[in-house]
């Protein structure tokens, strides 16, 4: 009796969540497969004919291969900012946890500020122009680092606490300097949290729309999220191409999700148990 009820509840839950959470993705896929005319009806229906390759090639070729440029830009942006975040964030987290000093309260305050203060847009553009980094990928990379540091440092600091100090002392006695100690001994031990940071931040930066919109205007600098925005007006009638574009930029997060589900959840729920 109990078991049937439990199964019934489970089935119902599966049904409801499939409708609510999967149907929108099915809609994206189906529309991306349709031809232009059928897609323009925007109906939730099975395609009468399939146009996967046509649509794929058209969306890639659109506007001088803008989507390819965008994927290259987004890849560079994501890899470079995440690399910097991991190395710089781990350095800060390491020293912050190991050596409490007069700086610690200031650092804590700045971390908190970085988490809650919304970035001031126009003054940031003003600063970027001042240092000659506005509308450059370099500037955008550094912006993503600046905005992602607080969260990264928090994760690293918490994890460094679990590495015994005796290890540092042993390495120092053996003659390792701070750089050797950090890069050859501590950083490899931080691997689990490094993976978490890489996964969480790369999804965030790859999906970032607002910051490239402000700080990286220009056709050459387009990132994948902005292609959607650009195509939205251009493809007012070509819903098949618009949704093919959505489908393509959903694939990288999907791959990350399939392989690193556990690390993502670990990173995003880091505050839940201790508060």
């Amino acid at each position, binding site marked *: 009796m109990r078991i049937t009820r439990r199964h019934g509840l489970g089935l119902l839950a599966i049904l409801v969540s499939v409708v609510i959470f999967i149907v929108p993705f099915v809609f994206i896929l189906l529309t991306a497969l349709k031809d232009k005319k059928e897609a323009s009806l925007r109906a939730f229906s099975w395609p009468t004919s399939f146009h996967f390759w046509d649509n794929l090639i058209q969306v890639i070729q659109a506007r001088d291969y803008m989507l390819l440029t965008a994927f290259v830009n987004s890849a560079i942006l994501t890899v470079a900012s995440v690399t910097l975040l991991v190395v710089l964030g781990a350095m800060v987290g390491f020293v912050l946890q190991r050596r409490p000093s007069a700086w610690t309260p200031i650092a804590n305050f700045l971390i908190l500020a970085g988490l809650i203060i919304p970035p001031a847009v126009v*003054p940031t553009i003003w600063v970027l122009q001042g240092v000659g980094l506005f509308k450059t990928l370099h500037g955008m990379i550094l912006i993503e680092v600046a905005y992602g540091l607080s969260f990264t440092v928090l994760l690293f600091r918490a994890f460094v606490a679990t590495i015994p100090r005796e290890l540092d002392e042993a390495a120092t006695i053996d003659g390792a300097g701070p750089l050797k100690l950090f890069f050859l001994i501590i950083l490899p031990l931080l691997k689990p949290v490094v993976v978490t940071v890489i996964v969480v931040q790369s999804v965030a930066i790859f999906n970032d729309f607002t910051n490239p919109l402000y700080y990286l205007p220009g056709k050459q600098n387009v990132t994948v999220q902005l292609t959607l925005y650009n195509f939205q007006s251009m493809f007012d009638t070509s819903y098949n191409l618009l949704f093919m574009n959505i489908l393509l930029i959903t694939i990288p997060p999907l791959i990350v999700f399939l392989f690193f589900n556990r690390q993502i959840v670990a990173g995003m729920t880091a505050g839940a148990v201790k508060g």
Partner: protein
Amino acid sequence: MALASPAAVAIAVPARRPAQRSPYPTWFFLPAAIIYAVLFLVPTLASLFFSLTRWTLFNWTFIGLDNFVQFFREPFLVQGLINTLIYAALTSGLKVVLGLLLAVFLTSEIMARDFLRSVIFFPVLVSTVGVGITFTVLMHPTTGAINETLALFGIKGPGWLTDPRLALISVALVDVWKGLGLATVIYIAGIVSIPQDFYEAAKIDGANAFQRFWNVTLPLARPATITVVILSLIGGLRSFDLIWSMTRGGPGFTSDVLASVIYKQYQAGFYGLSTAGNVVLFILVAIIIVPVSIFLNRKERTP
């Protein structure tokens, strides 16, 4: 200096050595601190000044509090402020309630638990703009799949994004759809960390399922509640991309929030006013988040 006695050198060297050889050098902060200071702190501090000016990026005129006066006088700017509060309250409220219920459900022994967790979590990782465009199509008043489905049951669906009274709420619902997975996994982590003994003790005392939820799960999942409330409040108050990709603040200004007002003023070239909007948003976030986190964290310590 060349005449310094050997003794002085002998004293000076050991005094400097330990500081130099500290395995935890302060300069490890330096690269991160420079990037953070130049690209985050300086603009934040500069915003306090530039919000008091009429500004073209190349020159500025000091106009005192005029920008702020305008912000609280123009009806559509005030509307943006109110909408921001509604949006943040609605999204975080729904995420707390639905996230907690789903987490309780998904930590009980049901079929396909891991599958359901994954399905609910996946939208968190998807492009917000992509989600926004998809739901704009699904929510179309006549051809959208949502209203067509409702029509099958004889219900005439509303103009989700075209009705001025509904547009903001519709966007907030999509925000909840996208962010609910995060709230749920945070609650799952919180609930899983509650020792089973508490539930057994409550059972022995004769507590029913609802009493166990109310008196054990809810209070002991408090750290998770704090995380969900604070994260979704910060996210909700700052939300821009979903609103921008779905309604552009329309119809009229009925779904404008502070972040979209800031963007519109920036596009129009009113840099001083846009920056004043940033300062208003900053103050709003601070006066909401700080008391909320103090309140939530204090109650935890007095059981």
